[in-house]
């Protein structure tokens, strides 16, 4: 009889200690950063499993439910065709997120490659690449991506690539400056000294030691890409209707801004919150490296 409560007590102490160590870990993470990660996690969940959050269709309207303000049946209200706004925002996450990912990937890969070559080869090659980068930076990002879309055609992926190209120049700059300093370190010289070929030394030493800066920047670029993709959607250069892309939602809602404030407000909040979260995370990544 007397054994059972003791054993039970032991278990609670164990469990308590475990919970305390998790709590200690959480306490060390600043609350703002924690929130930012939760936002990103939520956005990812929205993109992967929109069915968990809403049972309305994002594209099919419900007759008689047009332009309803937020209430219990439609938490964020409905649009002029009776489509549930919450469902449209939830289903739109995938377009915004994949678009941003593709854009950052394009920028990171192409920018890193250009920066690596420019910084490590040096001389004329460096000058040529960096002057092209200067030209790219001189053109306003929106103008540049609009021209690229006109060349590539309209669509989610095309818009994403167009946004990515505007990031290439910035990635190339950051990476080049890192590469130039890593290239001069003794361990890189030592790697050449022990018979390393140019490509191998770049791959094994220069790239791993300089890429952290570009990775930290990728998080900022992620926020920027979301903003720019939404802008393109807003201007009608992104996904065609009835895709529930966030920028497009804001653009469509604009027609009813005087009577149906929720149509612009909620997608706008979604964009702002995601961008802020991405910036907060990039700040922490930048601080740590």
């Amino acid at each position, binding site marked *: 009889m007397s054994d059972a409560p003791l054993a039970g007590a032991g278990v609670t102490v164990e469990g308590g200690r475990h919970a305390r160590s998790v709590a200690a870990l959480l306490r060390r993470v600043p609350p703002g950063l924690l929130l930012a990660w939760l936002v990103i996690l939520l956005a990812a969940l929205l993109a992967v499993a929109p069915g968990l959050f809403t049972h309305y269709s994002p594209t099919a309207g419900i007759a008689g439910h047009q332009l309803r303000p937020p209430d219990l049946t439609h938490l964020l209200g409905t649009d002029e065709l009776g489509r549930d706004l919450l469902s449209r925002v939830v289903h739109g996450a995938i377009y915004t997120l994949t678009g941003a990912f593709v854009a950052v990937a394009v920028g990171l890969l192409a920018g890193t490659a250009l920066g690596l070559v420019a910084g490590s080869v040096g001389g004329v090659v460096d000058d040529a690449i960096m002057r092209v980068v200067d030209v790219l930076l001189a053109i306003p990002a929106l103008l540049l991506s609009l021209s690229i879309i006109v060349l590539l055609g309209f669509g989610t992926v095309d818009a994403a690539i167009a946004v990515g190209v505007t990031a290439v120049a910035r990635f190339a700059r950051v990476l080049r400056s890192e590469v130039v300093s890593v290239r001069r*370190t*003794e*361990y890189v*010289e*030592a*790697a*050449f*000294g*022990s*018979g*390393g*070929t140019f490509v*191998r030394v770049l791959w*094994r*030493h220069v790239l*791993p*030691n300089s890429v952290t800066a570009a990775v930290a920047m990728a998080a900022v670029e992620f926020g920027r890409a979301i903003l720019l993709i939404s802008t393109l959607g807003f201007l009608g250069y992104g996904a065609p209707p009835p895709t529930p892309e966030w920028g497009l939602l804001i653009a469509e809602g604009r027609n009813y801004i005087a009577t149906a404030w929720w149509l612009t407000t909620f997608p706008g909040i979604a964009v702002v919150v995601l961008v802020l979260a991405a910036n907060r995370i990039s700040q922490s990544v930048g601080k740590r490296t």
Partner: protein
Amino acid sequence: MTRPAVLELDNVAISYREQDIVRRVVHDVSFSIAAGEVVALVGESGSGKTTTAQAVIGLLPGNGQVDHGAIRLDGTDIAHLSQRRLDAIRGSRISLIPQDPSSSLDPVRTIGSQVAEILDIHRPRDRAANRERVIELLGHVGLSRPELRVRQYPHELSGGMRQRVLIAIAVALKPALIIADEPTSALDVTVQRRILDLIDGLRAENDTAVLFVTHDLAVAADRADRLVILRDGRIQEQGETAAIFRAPRSAYTRRLLADAPSLAPVSYRAARPAAGGEPAIVVRDLVQDFVLAGRGGERFRAVDSVSFTVPRGSTHAIVGESGSGKTTIARAVVGFQRPTSGHVRVDGTDLATLRGSAMRHFRRTIQLVYQNPFGSLDPRQSVRSIIEEPLLNFGALPAAERAAKALAIFDRVGLPRDLLARKPRALSGGQRQRVAIARALVLDPRVLVLDEAVSALDVTVQAQILRLLGELQRDLGLSYLFVSHDLAVVRQIADSVTVLHNGRAVDAGPVRDVFEMPTSDYTRDLIEAIPGKRHPAFA
């Protein structure tokens, strides 16, 4: 000790707090300094010597604190004074001569305003008189043309001159105590001697007490009345310098004394029969010019027709101060830069004939070990992959064989195997340098170029690495080109030597000849500047 103590440390303990962990770095340290006395705090890196000195002047980092004990300046405890009360003491009663003259002066302000600052802080009323005093002080610390210096910026002055400016700041208000934290370790030996003479002169003049913090036992022995030997935050031994040298009581002191090359009784390497065949390195009339950036193609001659030969299996040293061109020669010999003119032959191959892939294959013959083991290892690689990498560069060795070879070298340089998976930052300086040597040796080179390879290490670690290099040379028949500024080390380990001054060889030959019958004034100066002469050969 009849005179009253200016500074007295009584049972002082200091600890640092990192996150939630409190780590004590100084344990129960007690010593005192009387007016006019020089006490040297001697220890290796991590011994707590700088922490102790920082506590005395109230400049511990934010996470450091004095746990218990008293630091008494003229009888009053200053260990727990507020920063405001300390401000009145710092500069006027206690002053500091910092270690690194290049980073201790504000680069955007003139010398004059930086020296005047300390006077203005403590005597704000007579600014005009302070200006005159600045010029007087700069003259007093041996700077030529002080009227000109007050208007100059730090970058216009050499390292030795900057250290003189810092000394002028330190002595400006005739403090009772000067803390000199490694005041000369960033300077060339000949400059070092003059700076130490200056500090000594100023001390005698004002009857100042000096707390001299140093890692160099030989320098401490030359300059200090008493020594305090620290290790891991504990005093190992303290007493009169001469007494400690005559009869060191602690085992640690004995080891320090034995390992310091400049304190060891002068001995040269036994002359060995020259190995036959092609010499390992032949340098003939090497000239290296550098084009100065932004000066219309103006050229600077870093190395001016230097020649030397390194016979197989021997050690040749290149000695010189900073800017003498010694590193330039090392880099030309390993083929990192093409000479402007002259020839370099390594193991019978003329480097000038090598291009591209031939150059890459030549690198198996000769390897370079750098001065700074922190910078020469990729921080992202594990020790194992650092050592294996050179083998990967030369192709087709099966993985198992490669690993075995790396492991053999790893054992050969005396590293325990559990370090293999670590990153360089988890190793000590000595261990890193062993890794760097292992990486150089894994390709079975014939020649090793050691560019100040032991200069950044503590004296006991340095002695271990030098012993290792000696063993490796004997066992593997290696030839060394040993580039160094430290004549005491060179005297101990080299067979022949070239003394460089401003890119020219001013002396050359077998080590014994050069050290005992130097032909140039410069070499005589260098030899004269080797510290440790006051208490020679205790044996």
